[in-house]
């Protein structure tokens, strides 16, 4: 892909948020997972081959300002996500894809925004936690173990999150630290923000993608979402992928997403 990324900002919950865009076609909005989207990824490239891919970074996520530090409640995150969607130009009823923490925001968008979302894809979303199906605590991990917990493909994880040659290692670390801070504000301690009480409002056709080796939210969670969502639900497991399945298996994940959205 030689096409360049179009970068701009939108204002969401009082915070300037970075948006990246690439490709042409029907709009597809992607909300990234733990760690955010600090670099354009092979998964996004694969989607951009046939879609206009729009990647907003919520407050505190890579490239965005840190207005999240003044957020008082979870409702501020919903407001920020709705503001982001409103701020995108020439985007009417986009398909929304969300992974991990971004999957929670995408699910809220579909549940609360209703008509605003055409089709929904959730990749290992947070939002429900059942103590009978325990996962590894993503926020009690020494730095060296983070790739092992979040990914099943450490080389691809490193490619997605290591600092580019022209970045200051300190500033890169500070940025990733801020993403952890923002993610923890949304999720602490389980990522269970009462979404189960809102999932019935999701009437859109929904694709659930789950990494077979997700250590944080085991694949069994897919059934819990499927049981509560009102719209038609398809579930696909991605072999060999961990929690960040789109990082671990970008081509397979993109293939599933594109097939579902164009069906």
């Amino acid at each position, binding site marked *: 892909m030689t096409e360049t990324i179009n970068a701009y900002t939108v204002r969401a919950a009082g915070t300037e948020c970075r948006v990246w865009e690439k490709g042409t076609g029907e709009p597809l909005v992607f909300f990234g997972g733990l760690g955010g989207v600090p670099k354009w990824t092979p998964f996004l490239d694969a989607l951009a081959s046939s879609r206009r891919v729009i990647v907003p970074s919520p407050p505190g996520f890579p490239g965005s300002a840190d207005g999240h*530090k003044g957020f*008082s409640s979870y409702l501020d995150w919903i407001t920020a996500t709705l503001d982001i969607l409103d701020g995108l130009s020439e985007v009417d009823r986009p398909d929304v894809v969300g992974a991990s923490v971004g999957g929670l925001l995408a699910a809220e968008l579909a549940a609360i925004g209703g008509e605003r979302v055409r089709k929904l894809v959730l990749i290992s979303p947070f939002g429900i936690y059942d103590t009978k199906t325990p996962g590894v605590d993503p*926020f*009690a*991990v*020494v*730095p060296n*173990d983070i790739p092992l917990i979040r990914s099943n493909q450490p080389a691809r994880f490193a490619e997605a999150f290591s600092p580019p040659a022209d970045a200051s290692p*300190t500033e890169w*670390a*500070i940025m990733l*630290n*801020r993403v*952890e*801070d*923002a*993610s*923890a*504000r949304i999720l*602490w*301690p389980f990522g269970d923000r009462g979404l189960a009480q809102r999932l019935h409002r999701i009437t859109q056709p929904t694709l659930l993608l789950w990494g077979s080796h997700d250590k944080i939210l085991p694949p069994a969670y897919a059934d819990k979402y499927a049981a509560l969502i009102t719209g038609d639900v398809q579930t696909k497991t991605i072999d060999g992928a961990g929690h960040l399945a789109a990082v671990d298996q970008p081509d397979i994940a993109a293939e599933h997403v594109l097939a579902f959205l164009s069906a």
Partner: protein
Amino acid sequence: MRFINFQLIAYPELPEDFVQTHKSNWVTADPKLFDPARVGLLYNNAVDLLVAAAESGYDAVGVNEHHNTGYAMTPSPNLLAAQLVRETSDVAVCVLGNTLVQYNPPVRVAEEFAMLDVMSGGRLIAGFPNGTPMDTAYSYGINPSELRDRYREANELITRAWAADEPFEFNGRFTQLRYANPIPSPLQKPRPPIWIPGSGAVETWDFCCDNDYLYAYMSVSGYYKAQHITEGYWDRVRAKGIEPNPFRGAFAVFLAAADSYAEAKEKYGPAAEYFFNRAFHVAPEFGNPPGIISEATLRKMFELSGVSDEELWDFSAPGFDELVEKSFVIAGSYDSVGEQLEALARRTNVGNLVTVTSYGNMPKDVADAHTREVGAKVLPQIRGLFEDEWEHRWWPEAAGLPAHVRNAQVKEAVR
């Protein structure tokens, strides 16, 4: 120089292979290891030992708050302090402290500290810790990213409540009270001295300076590791044009003093090794939850070294000599310990020493004797340090007065 004798209350019978067989003695500590009958005895012993300290030359007795741990089994320090205010008559009672964000609503701290202050006749030192991540984020499930803001708001609510002479409305981000009106008020006016235990966050230094609170560096990591932290604090104090009064700083030290180093090692070495190498066993993944360290402090840490979480929470050493070498324990003859404490106090410019003389699995009789010996033979050597040059404005005025004088004052005030 003021001396606080401090009790951590570690469980003394952890198995010998504890570190090999258990991941952590904090957050996920195995509850089956702690026999309730034994713990009950330990609490009573701790109060006895603090009373012994009060009788043997220390200016204050102190306890603190930790959760989900067998290294410091004090989830409710106020319950111990409530006994100390009855069992002592003239020392300050230092609760270091109540982890503000863990009391909901935080007026609970205003109420309980005020109760302790009035019951003690105005001898309370009120500690306002941010709390360790193990306690706040993991054991109490509080969102670590919000801790600092929650703490600031709680501080504002409590201090405002202590100063208020009528009910007031408090409309905060985290606490909303239409009727903030904790009763009683503290006896000390405008409030008890407030001490902030810290571990090197730059915001905490500024917070202490801006509010005229005392900064207490409470890490058990010894003064070699801590020196840049006390230096950082005094840099901020000077930068703000505040006098570097040593009494606005406190420092924690583990002591092992006897007639000789060899005797100190023989008597107290096993207890020190037990504490550092067995009881204080913390899984490093609980040391650094997201957002708990501000970006400003993070930048400073990157500048300074790049210490990993594993190193940050590793306080072990092969043996007692190495613990002493790392300055985790200050050991030697009574004279030598006195000299070392004086050097430490001068170098760090700190006028309050939080001394730990009873630790790990030290038997009660040994701890009692050690506490008294240090009181009789070490403290007098440096008692006068800083006292002539500086005024101590972070100490309860009533502490140090004989009980009958204080009681007369209280009666007078009531009249």
